[in-house]
């Protein structure tokens, strides 16, 4: 994947698709993310606690799904510092079974708008994350400063 340059960024326009990504999330990934982020909520690693909370099983951290969709942005821009804002709703949980395959999350993005602001060109990007064909994130949107 080639990151944006001032030349390629000049042609970024509404409707452009960002390179998509498919990520397998296993229980080991959840444990690793729990440790790295400090979010030790047991619904992300204990079937017992997840079940008693009314969930169909252990679920991925919402913030992990948000971070995975964020990879679409960083891979596209090549400059993680260009991300000015990023927000999402958590609409559906990603249920992660206790097996080797885990859950597969599909991530994609598209440019919703390009605007000039204070001498900079800002791309507004709508992101999608789906699991079993259904949206995991809602209204996931980021503002990215384009190189130029």
């Amino acid at each position: 994947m080639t990151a944006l340059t001032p030349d390629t960024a000049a042609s970024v326009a509404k409707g452009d698709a960002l390179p998509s990504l498919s990520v397998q999330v296993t229980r080991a990934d959840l444990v690793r993310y729990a440790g790295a982020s400090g979010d030790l909520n047991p619904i992300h690693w204990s079937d017992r606690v997840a079940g008693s909370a009314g969930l169909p099983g252990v679920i991925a951290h919402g913030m992990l799904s948000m971070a995975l969709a964020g990879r679409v942005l960083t891979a596209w821009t090549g400059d993680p510092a260009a991300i000015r804002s990023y927000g999402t709703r958590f609409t559906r949980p990603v249920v992660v079974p206790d097996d080797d395959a885990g859950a597969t999350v599909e991530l994609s993005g598209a440019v919703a708008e390009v605007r000039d602001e204070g001498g900079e060109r800002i791309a507004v990007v709508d992101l999608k994350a789906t699991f079993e064909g259904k949206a995991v994130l809602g209204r996931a949107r980021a503002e990215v400063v384009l190189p130029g």
Partner: protein
Amino acid sequence: MVDQSWVGHSTDPVGPYQVGREKIREFAVAIGDGDPLFRDPDAARAAGHRDLVAPPTFPTCFTMPVIEEFLRDPALGWDYTRMVHGDQRIVFRRPVVAGDELTTVLHVDELRTRAGNHMLTLRCEVTDASGAAVATTHSMLVSPAGEDA
């Protein structure tokens, strides 16, 4: 108890949290993002940054503990065990980089109670050692209202 009297409440500043290179690397590995700016200081400097850049969702590492401590205050009476994360937004004034010493102040922005659930919107204002604004996070958290509803 969880009621409107909390809206407008803010915490004392929490910190400083020192952003470490190894913490950024650990977090980047945990989200599977191999961007060189998250692991190679030379690449980060070549791109114009002082040190490693943190992934955009990295501030959760130091803002969520502030949120958790607030929500576990018995005076608030929040049902932490049945909480779910409703939405999350982060706005950057500048990227977080390794070596930053960051201070967080939590503000209670909004409380709505509907259909038996509390929806609490918390804002974290993150500043650096010079007092300059770095980032603002907005988190909406949902928990059963119980007999408060």
